[in-house]
């Protein structure tokens, strides 16, 4: 593999890793709200979270660019206040990937929260555990299989993100050219077919490895929690 290809791989892993890490707290919070609480606007929140699943990625990317671009309301504020630029940076690519992967993550976590035995949380409360401690010591550990599945799905989805990424972060070699963008670029380049094939196989391998790892981890958790 060429240096450029290795660079694309490393960049993809970094973008996907940060995408998952940064969205996990929000994913847990959103899943918890949707699984446990009823409040006005819940349906709207649910819809908003799932929007990236049904919208064309390019539309999501363009929307993000309008918001986060240097002239967008949030982008301008970030630039003026903190000197942070998201558009056409790898951080922007991570945000695009996170938004696109968010519904998958929330769904998995929400499912595991909904199937969790609430009686165990009640038992913890009668043992003197505050709601926060119950969440940290009972709810989260028991929802761990769902967290793992959610993270892996989001990671795999982030690795494959193309449309929203190219709109928000562009296709800058060494900065925002992740695996899918590199494949696209190689195919556009005369004589790049071999490199495109290598990167394609690499993508397939990564995705398979991630799914396999999640299955193994989830199975281990199921064995632990068997009752």
């Amino acid at each position, binding site marked *: 593999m060429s240096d450029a290809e290795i660079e694309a791989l490393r960049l993809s892993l970094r973008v996907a890793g940060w995408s998952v890490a940064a969205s996990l707290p929000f994913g847990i919070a959103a899943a918890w709200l949707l699984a446990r609480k009823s409040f006005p606007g819940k349906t709207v929140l649910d819809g908003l979270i799932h929007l990236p699943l049904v919208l064309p990625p390019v539309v999501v990317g363009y929307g993000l660019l309008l918001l986060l671009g240097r002239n967008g309301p949030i982008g301008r504020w970030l630039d003026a206040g903190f000197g942070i630029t998201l558009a056409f940076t790898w951080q922007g690519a991570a945000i695009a990937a996170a938004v696109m992967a968010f519904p998958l993550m929330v769904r998995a976590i929400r499912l595991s929260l909904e199937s969790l035995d609430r009686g165990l949380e*009640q038992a913890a409360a009668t*043992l003197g555990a505050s709601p926060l401690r119950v969440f940290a*010591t009972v709810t989260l550990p028991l929802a761990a299989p769902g967290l793992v599945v959610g993270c892996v799905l989001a990671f795999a989805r982030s690795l494959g993100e193309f449309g929203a990424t190219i709109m928000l972060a562009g296709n800058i070699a060494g900065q925002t050219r992740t695996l899918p963008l590199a494949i696209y670029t190689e195919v556009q380049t005369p004589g790049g077919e071999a490199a495109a094939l290598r990167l394609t196989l690499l993508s397939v391998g990564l995705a398979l490895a991630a799914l396999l790892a999640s299955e193994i981890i989830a199975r281990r958790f199921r064995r632990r929690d068997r009752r």
Partner: protein
Amino acid sequence: MTASLLVDVTVHRAPFQLNVALEVDQPGFTVLFGPSGAGKSTLLDTIAGLIRPSRGTIRLAGTVLDDTAQGRHQPPWRRGIGYVFQDLRLFPHLSVRGNLLYGARRRPPSERDRDLEAFARLFGLQKLLDRRPHRLSGGERRRVAIGRALMARPKLLLMDEPLTSLDADLRADLLPYLARLRGPGAPPVLYVSHDPDELLRLADTVVVIADGTVQRVGPVAAVLADPPPQVARALGGPATVIESVIAPDNGEPDLDRLLIPGTDFWVGKTGAPAGAPVRVRIPARDVVLSVAPPPLTSALNVLSGPVSCVRTAGSGGVDVALDVGFDLWARISRRSADRLGVVLGRPLHALVKAASADTVDRPATSDHAVGNIDTVPRNAF
């Protein structure tokens, strides 16, 4: 250590409504007895704070836990009330040790470890501490659930049918562990059951709950002598309950003699050693009355005394109590009552077969009778 519990609540819980006024200021076991679906578990959930009453107050040891008029509701984790759930609810992701220690986190580590050792020994869990709940037997799980609740040092312990769904052998194994909860320093226990045998073995006080409300409260002997109609059938009708002690060896292979003042009272062999406290239940319908001292019969126990109470039973019969040192109840027909000329004060003789008296071990609340109690630190009974 007696923490008095005052409950006066209404709880709406489809499809029924629970309306309970109750005061528990006795140490030991208070058994909430009643048919399934009478609202007993709902009452425990309400006392634990898992359900908010729609009206009323709950107080424990002077602290207000619920007061709907003032909008006060203390959350379960601030109540200091232990709960052994019917479905146990052990934490599947924690070891037995982790489960036991869960409620003891705020105490100093040295005290915690000492408690862990003591309770593990008390409930026979020393060798199981590193196991996960799914690798325990049904009886072991129940012992862990009880130990876990006690490790949090609750002011009151709620138990919801902890022996239900166990076979007879396992129940027999567990009952001695439950009896240890009657030792000094143990919290008062509010114990839900619909099993007459558990009632006889464990109860100090009985609260009969049926149709969503309290039908009767009292010492076990008083309630069993005149059970409310909703539970009379389940209990096999009225019965006399006496507390006694096994007499020294009598040479009979199949009988025990009890120390009852003024008489020898024979019961079927219990297996308990001489001096062991027992509780005896004599169903009123198994007691035969006679105007004259009976000639030799197969009934080994003949007790004599004047009629101390007569009441008409709901089913048309008559319940007659003889004062034989205690009140001994007999259920006889109206016709028999007329033939015997039953009136207050008339001296009569009662025949009781040894085989018709249920006798159960009844470890005393004082420490000498309770197994491993001396290995448990102060206040941990």
